[in-house]
Each structure stands twice: as structure tokens, then as C-alpha cells.
């Protein structure tokens, strides 16, 4: 499937051909009717983003966000490695819809093998008239290039990614005014979409927007790739309808908890999402609204399963180690706060904690929440606050005095 000849036997690029016979505005309308939402983490409507491009500003660019670095998330890797032409086709349809002249596929530096496969796919597409001048005999000209990241979580944030692509430190920009659709790469209109989002676009055309939408729930069109990891028997990537029951994913498809242990908690949307206790997680459905109603978020649909043998303070240490390492350093409260929280958590686990450390930990998390340029602040605050609130007894048990 990663070779063009095989992909074309399965209909690759037929939907691009169809899109090229439509007006760009019609393409946006069609995707709008499908209810396709971004699979990068925020769940923002894909077509709405496309429609924000100002009418008279050129050139324009499409960026594929293949930085996939939210811990627990590993689904885009499979698309890059196994179905890169679906991604290229979707990105080209998007580029036609917004009249972009080039596509940059920003792939995290650690993805050496996926990058190799995508580069191969680009070469094949170029050699067969699917990229470059006058694509498929139309008037549309568009190129695609990969661009490597070099190991920074924050470059998955769309404005951080743009800074990085411009050859700088990937420190996020203020929004407003820097909404990429209006002021993006090199200050021109830029659409940044996740790999999975764009790879779904050909399916919107193939099935038709109504049938695509009907796969999911009313506000969540289509299917979703769930990354299942942690203490389950069959971790992996599962493509399921939006709104699929969490219990079914863990106990049925996932094969249940390792060694028949008891479920303690679930992190439903990547390491940034608030934790759900086993009780809170029971019976919920996996779509953006349902997970939010349960007190967390679907995020990048990275479901991490925590069993009874995992200590929550230890889990917090792993999470904080990550955020302290990845803070880009731009905002003081995040740069200093993440390191401070990590030190407090370490002290607790080393048996040197005081009871006021728990309050400090919570207060620092609170101070970082919502006060930073980008969403990194909440991304570290939410897990920290939810672990402390819901599993306070485990933290208290570590306090000496």
C-alpha cells in the first residue's frame, strides 16, 4: 500500500481527480458537510479552518503536522509508513481547496523510517504527474516536501511548528494575531492539519459527506484512529467509529488488563488530558463531547490504560519529567514551574516530601494553567491537578510529616 502502483489499485488519487473538477469553494463545502474534525488534539473543524483563509492574500501553503509527539499517540506513524499516498492525496485536495502552491510535511526527527517512506512516495507521485506542474492534466501546480523536526514536543503546536519550519527555535506565537490561516508560514495564509485529518479527506469524497458523517456521531464525523497503550493485552492502533465505547476498546479489542489485574484509571486523550478514575471511565463513549462531559478530553485519542500496580505519584513523575524537558522556555511560569513541580514530585517519591508540598504542587500547576502563550501550560497543569485531586491519598501516603 505504500507503493504507488498498489495504492492506485485501491483507488488512490481518484478523489483528487474528482476534486480538481470542482471549484475550490465547493470542496470546502463538501468537507464541511462531512463534519470532519481535526485529529491532532484540539478537534477543530477542518473545513472551518480552510474557510478562514483571507480572499486576496497569496502565496498560500499547506503544512501537514506529522510531529506526533503527544505521549501515548502513535497513529500517524502508521499512515506515514503504510499509506503515505492517502496523506498526499488528502493534502493535495486541501491545497486545491485553499489554492496553496506548496505542501510541507513536518515530520518529527525521530521518525527516520516513516520519513524515508514518505520521501519515496513523494518521488513516485512526482514522477507520475501527481505532484508538480499541471497535476493530472489540470491547471493546478503544487509541490510537496518533507521537513524534519529535531526533537521538540512544542513543534507540534501549530505556531511553534511554523517557527521551526522557518529555521528557528520552535517557540509558539501569540494568537491573535498569528492565526496561521491568516498569518502563517512567512506571514502568509497557511493551513496546518494533522496527518490523520488529511488522510481522511479522500474518504469524505469516496463515501460522500453524508455517509462519512454517519460513521460517527452527530458532532463528530467519520472514524478515528485510537492509540491504545499502557497496561492492556493488545495495545495498538484501532480505527473505530467516533463515539465507540471506551469499555469495548479496553476490555474487548484491547484484550483486557494485563494479567487480569484491576483497572485503576484511564488517560483518554494523551498525557495532557486529565485522568479518569476507573469509576469515571466506566460507560463513556469516545467522542469529543462525551469525554469532555466525563471531565477530561479526547485530545489525540491516545488512550493510556493504568492498572492497579501503577503508582499515581510515579505516573506524575514520568509526566512531569516530560513537560519539564519539553518546555520551550519562552514563558517564565512554564519554564520555571515545570522544573519546580518535577523537583517537588521527585522529593515526594524519595520520601523527603512535606505535606505542604502537595499544596505547592497544586498551586504551581494552577499558576501555569491558562497563563501561557500556548496550550502547553494547561497540558501540564491538567494532569497534575487531576492526579492530585483524584488520587490524593496516594500522594499523602508518601509524606513523612
Amino acid at each position, binding site marked *: 500500500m505504500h507503493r504507488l502502483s498498489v495504492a492506485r489499485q485501491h483507488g488512490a488519487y481518484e478523489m483528487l481527480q474528482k476534486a480538481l473538477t470542482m471549484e475550490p469553494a465547493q470542496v470546502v463545502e463538501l468537507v464541511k458537510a462531512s463534519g470532519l474534525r481535526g485529529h491532532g488534539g484540539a478537534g477543530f473543524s477542518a473545513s472551518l479552518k480552510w474557510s478562514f483563509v483571507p480572499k486576496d492574500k497569496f502565496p498560500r501553503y499547506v503544512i501537514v503536522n506529522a510531529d506526533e509527539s503527544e505521549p501515548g499517540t502513535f497513529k500517524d506513524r*502508521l499512515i506515514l509508513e503504510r499509506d503515505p499516498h492517502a496523506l498526499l492525496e488528502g493534502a493535495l485536495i486541501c491545497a486545491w481547496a485553499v489554492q496553496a502552491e506548496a505542501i510541507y510535511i513536518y515530520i518529527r526527527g525521530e521518525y527516520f523510517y516513516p520519513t524515508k517512506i514518505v520521501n519515496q512516495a513523494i518521488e513516485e507521485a512526482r514522477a507520475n504527474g501527481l505532484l508538480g506542474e499541471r497535476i493530472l492534466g489540470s491547471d493546478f501546480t503544487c509541490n510537496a516536501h518533507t521537513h524534519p523536526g529535531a526533537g521538540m514536543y512544542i513543534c507540534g503546536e501549530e505556531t511553534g511548528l511554523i517557527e521551526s519550519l522557518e*529555521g528557528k527555535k520552535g517557540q509558539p506565537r501569540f494568537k491573535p494575531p498569528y492565526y496561521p490561516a491568516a498569518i502563517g508560514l512567512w506571514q502568509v495564509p497557511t493551513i496546518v492539519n494533522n496527518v490523520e485529518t488529511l488522510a481522511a479527506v479522500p474518504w469524505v469524497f469516496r463515501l460522500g459527506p453524508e455517509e462519512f458523517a454517519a460513521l460517527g456521531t452527530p458532532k463528530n464525523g467519520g472514524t478515528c484512529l485510537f492509540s491504545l497503550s499502557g497496561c492492556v493485552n493488545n495495545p495498538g492502533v484501532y480505527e473505530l467509529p467516533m463515539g465507540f465505547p471506551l469499555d469495548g476498546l479496553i476490555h474487548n479489542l484491547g484484550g483486557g488488563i494485563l494479567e487480569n489485574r484491576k483497572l485503576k484509571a484511564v488517560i483518554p486523550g494523551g498525557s495532557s488530558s486529565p485522568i479518569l478514575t476507573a469509576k469515571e471511565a466506566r460507560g463513556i463513549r469516545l467522542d469529543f463531547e462525551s469525554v469532555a462531559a466525563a471531565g477530561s478530553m479526547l485530545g489525540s485519542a491516545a488512550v493510556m490504560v493504568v492498572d492497579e500496580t501503577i503508582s499515581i505519584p510515579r505516573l506524575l513523575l514520568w509526566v512531569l519529567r516530560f513537560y519539564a524537558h519539553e518546555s520551550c522556555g519562552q514563558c517564565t511560569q512554564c519554564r520555571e514551574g515545570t522544573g519546580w513541580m518535577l523537583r517537588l514530585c521527585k522529593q515526594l517519591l524519595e520520601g523527603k516530601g512535606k505535606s505542604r508540598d502537595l499544596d505547592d504542587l497544586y498551586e504551581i500547576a494552577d499558576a501555569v494553567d491558562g497563563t501561557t502563550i500556548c496550550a502547553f501550560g494547561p497540558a501540564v497543569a491538567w494532569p497534575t491537578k487531576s492526579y492530585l485531586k483524584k488520587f490524593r491519598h496516594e500522594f499523602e501516603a508518601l509524606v513523612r510529616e
Partner: protein
Amino acid sequence: MNGIPQGLEQKANEIILRYPPEHRNAALVPVLFEAQKSLGYLSPEVEAWAASTLGVTPVRVREVISFYSMMRREPAGKYHIMFCHNVACSMRGAESLQRYLESKLGIAAGEVTQDGLFSLAAVECLGACGWGPAMLVGEEQYFQLTQEKIDKILDELRQGRMPAGDSPTPLIGNVGLPTE
């Protein structure tokens, strides 16, 4: 130019063509990445060369190198190991496996073996959480690590052979029809 790996100049010129001519400095990260691939690290000579080739200030080059965790200004081992110790891998025993790997290599994370063969970095998430514990050796990816699998990989590397990686990534997920 002295100290610039052969072929790098040409490679850089190819990369620059991906960007509009007025934005050639966008090639900075990919060019440094290529330089590190061929030299093993980013030397002061490479920094100066990258700055003049791409028309940016030397301080901008240094700033970028210090920002990205995969870039280094010190030589690594012939085989650079990036071992994941993030959340999902740690839930599957990555921490004790890291200690095992360190004892086998005789170094701690962040160090290079005396013979220069191996260097080890404990890293934050390789995007392989369903197949953890996971690591990269150079550009090769290895998943579902156990002590035995690590032994095998190190043995082959010591004999100068690069063991086949887990590419493409396996599909562990059950492919049956969704049932509720």
C-alpha cells in the same frame, strides 16, 4: 572547506531548493540534521559553515542547536541509542530495562562508552507507545524490547552488523470487527 563532510555542500544545495529563494534560511534545521548524520555531531566548523551558507548569524545557529534535543555539539558513539523512558514505555517496564541496558553498556544515560562504540540517551517519547519499550539505534527502530532482545541487538552491533529493525511498525491491534 575544512572540516565539512564530503557531499554535504551538495546535499545542502538540494535542500535549499525546497524553499522559496528569499527564505533559504528555512533549510537550517534540515541542513544541520544532515550534517550531524554524516559527521556524528555539529562541530564549530559546521556551525560557521551553516551560518554562511544559509545567510544567518552564527548565534542563530547556536540557538537552534541548543533548542532541539536531537542536536549535539559533542561526538556521540558509533551507535547512538535513544531509549524511551516516557509514560507508556515506563508502564511497560522501561525504567528497569534502561538500568539493564546501562549495566550492559557500562555507562549511564548521557555518556559514551570508552571505546566510542556506543552512546546512550534516555529520551521522551518516540511515538511508539503501543509497542514499548522502544528505542532507536542510529536511524533504526526497535520495539517490544526485552532483556533478551537487547542482548541480541548489542551482540550484533558489537560484531559490526546492524540488526534489522521493526520496520514497518507491526500492527498489533486486533483487526476484528468492532463490537460493543
